């Protein structure tokens, strides 16, 4: 068996893993990274990037269909638009491929050794990797578990054939005529909305009383309305039971058994750590249920073993994994670091988009803060009007005593890019006066943030 010795071993080359490895390389640490699939993990290959690409194609197609249907508000007409979905998938795959090579290049530049294969722990500092050319033993002084997560499979709706996960949905040969989506979370609705725009008849089955339960009702109402406009049928409080020959069996809100005809059934009920086969049972890791328990330095209960990203639990976001990865690399290099982030922004790429950073009003009150809230509707924003995107608002939550901004949320078309401003404000410890006192370029949707802050201070200018 071939043997490699190194200072740092990173298991998994998803966003958390490859960022950690690159940073470690930059700090001169002898690093090895192991990946069984393609570099970039779920996010880059079957998650964030490919889904956003197809969502973009869906938006483009929707503009054409609206025009073709003579419903354009500004006189656009189009003739029988069609979508060659296979070509869209090829375009998407090309982007993914370029990013795979990009990550590979970054790792090489940082002098990180890449090993392709399935890793399994032998003890806290030794891993055996099954590669095509046989098994390799890797001994390390420190190990980072960055194995990421995989879609949750429902026992009565096993993946395969017409029952698909988000992975298969992004590489379908064609747009399914009828699509049933089990799970009204952000993944289910993002894809559901896109396929609806591609012309599929979409039905969403959500067990909880409403869609996108993580966000408060005020934020999700515009999304629900848009789904309705797109002809997406949402069955809340309904439970999927099973599927036979193209029919999804459910029990709806008032307990009746129903059957939904569907060419494809997309199951998006959550994600779970992808640690099967990693041999965690060989170690003595303290767990939090399915997730690996970590401290404020992403250290696990075993000295010299760290865990980052989705394996450590919610929120399962690529940018959280990347921040953890960077921090762990610096800790392994001996720098004094610990997790002290004040906020992790989250984006839901439905139509309209939702951005949330920090505490919502309810969360702030639950945390015992006296708060003041300022809300500014895009219908009063010039730029929104000029983009025919007036639905939605920006909402700022601040402490009542000294106006420290606790949270910023917004819903609106194309406002995901505001996440940067929201995050920066909270992380810098901005107060309402800081935001209000910052000149926001005109005309932009961003002005909504300034106006919301002014509103909270009691002297908004444009409403």
């Amino acid at each position, binding site marked *: 068996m071939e043997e490699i*010795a190194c200072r740092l071993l990173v298991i998994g080359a998803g966003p958390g893993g490859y960022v950690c490895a690159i940073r470690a390389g930059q*700090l001169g640490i002898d690093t090895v990274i192991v990946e069984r699939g393609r570099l970039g993990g779920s996010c880059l290959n079957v998650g964030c990037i490919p889904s956003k690409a197809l969502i973009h194609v869906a938006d483009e197609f929707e503009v054409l269909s609206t025009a073709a249907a003579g419903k354009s508000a500004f006189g656009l007409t189009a003739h029988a638009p069609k979508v060659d979905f296979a070509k869209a998938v090829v375009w998407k795959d090309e982007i993914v491929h370029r990013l795979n090579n990009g990550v590979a290049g970054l790792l090489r530049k940082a002098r990180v050794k890449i090993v392709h294969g399935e890793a399994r722990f032998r003890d806290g*500092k030794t891993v055996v990797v099954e590669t095509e050319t046989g098994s390799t033993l890797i*001994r390390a002084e420190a190990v980072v578990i960055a194995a990421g997560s995989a879609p949750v499979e429902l026992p009565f709706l096993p993946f395969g054939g017409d029952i698909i996960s988000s992975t298969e949905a992004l590489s379908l040969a064609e747009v399914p005529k009828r699509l049933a989506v089990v799970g009204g979370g952000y993944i289910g609705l993002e894809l559901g909305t896109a396929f609806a725009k591609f012309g599929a008849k979409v039905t969403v089955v959500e067990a909880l009383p409403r869609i996108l339960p993580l966000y408060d009702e005020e934020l999700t109402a515009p999304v629900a309305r848009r789904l309705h406009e797109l002809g997406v049928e949402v069955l809340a409080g309904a439970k999927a039971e099973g599927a036979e020959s193209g029919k999804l069996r459910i029990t709806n809100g008032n307990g009746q058994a129903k059957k939904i005809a569907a060419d494809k059934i997309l199951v998006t009920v959550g994600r779970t750590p992808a640690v099967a086969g990693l041999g965690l049972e060989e170690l003595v890791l303290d767990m939090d249920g399915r997730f690996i328990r970590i401290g404020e330095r992403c250290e696990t209960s075993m000295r010299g073993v760290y865990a980052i990203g989705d394996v450590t639990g919610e929120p399962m976001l690529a940018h959280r994994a990347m921040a953890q990865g960077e921090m762990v690399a610096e800790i392994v290099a001996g720098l*004094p*670091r610990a997790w002290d982030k*004040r906020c992790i922004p989250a984006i839901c790429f439905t139509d309209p988009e939702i951005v949330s950073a920090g505490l919502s009003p309810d969360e702030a009150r639950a945390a015992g803060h006296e708060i003041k809230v300022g809300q500014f509707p895009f219908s009063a924003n010039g730029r929104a009007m000029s983009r025919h995107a007036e639905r939605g608002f920006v909402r700022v939550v601040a402490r009542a005593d*000294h106006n420290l901004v606790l949270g910023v949320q917004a819903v609106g078309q194309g406002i995901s890019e505001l996440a940067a401003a929201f995050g920066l404000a909270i992380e*810098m410890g901005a107060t309402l006066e800081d935001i209000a006192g910052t000149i926001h370029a005109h005309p932009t949707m961003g002005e909504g943030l300034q106006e919301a802050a002014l509103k909270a201070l009691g002297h908004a200018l444009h409403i």
Partner: protein
Amino acid sequence: MGEHVVKLPDVGEGVAEAELVEWHVKVGDIVREDDLLASVMTDKATVEIPSPVEGEVLWTGGEIGDTLAIGSALVRVKTAGGEAPKAAPPPAPETAEVLPPVEAPKAAAPAAPKPRAPIPEQPLARPAPKREPVAMRRAPGEKPIASPAVRLEAREAGVDLRQVTGSGPGGRVTREDLEAFVARGPDAARSPGLARRTDITEIKIVGLRRRIAEKMALSKARIPHITIVEEVDVTALEDLRAALNKKPTAERPKLTVLPFLMRAMVRALAEQPGLNALFDDDAGIVRQHAGVHIGIATQTPTGLVVPVVKHAEARGLWECAVEVARLAERARDGTASREELSGSTITITSLGPLGAIATTPVINYPEVAIVGVNRMAIRPMWDGRAFVPRKMMNLSSSFDHRVIDGWDAAVFVQRLKELLETPAMLFVDA
């Protein structure tokens, strides 16, 4: 081609060195695996060393009769095999622990050059001066407000941001706040002038201070205190005291008011034993003590301590004085034994010249009464015809109203007043 260094193996348990007694090869010889290289002698045995590899002898380490240490090189052999001896696996896990290097963070500075002048770092190994207040455990949920850059520099400087008060809006710690904090160190004096003082120094309530806190809380929680403040004309007492203090001797040292008060209490308690008692409120029993053990509340460098004069009833004036002085001394320098600091049945507390006009003393649980002595002052008193200057001293005494009615308390205070105002009565055995 590779070169294999044959080391002198550990031939016997814990043997440190061995004497070279015979060479079986010389430089240039070709040896096959297991051919004998040399013989060495330890104080236990003569041992032949076979070659673990095949190849040409390049170098032999030492002459016959040399003493070689175990583990040192014995022979270098040019091996025919291609690869050089495999890189030694990383040292056994024991030494493989990830050891964050000790030297100050500057040494492993992140690749990106730091634009700002580096903040002077405190080397990790220097222990904070021992008496520096213990750093506050992070208040639950309350993260310090500071920008990521300031937070990073605080970490690099080994500063706990919660100790730095932010001058920015909402208590945000600015770069200047951090640099000022680092520059002047946590507890150096602020520059002169009336700068706003916002440092919060936290002192852990431990040891003696904690015990005092607990006792006070217990007493206040369980005992409904009734406090009676009474004026006592001590002019006569003072005159008597002055007379007695003319020629102090070892057995008869200078007297303070305290011994007189103790004698007065003994007399008064004889008539009201209920006040010289301990109330076990859990068991619902009042234990009246015949012996009068008077606790003397004494201020010491580490806090309030109550040494006890045992059996005051059996001690004369001077004996009381001597005992009080001895106990006070031991209490102050911390040598009082546990036995000397316990067992009181009633307590006297006095703040001497700081005694104020009146106080509300807290009963020394589980006792039921405490006599507080206030400041002596000359006050104009009406003697029936005119105001005359009299030396007055108030007594503020608290009683446990659960077992002592106001009436009994008042009777006791009046008796003390009476005895102190005519001190002669103290020496009349009624």
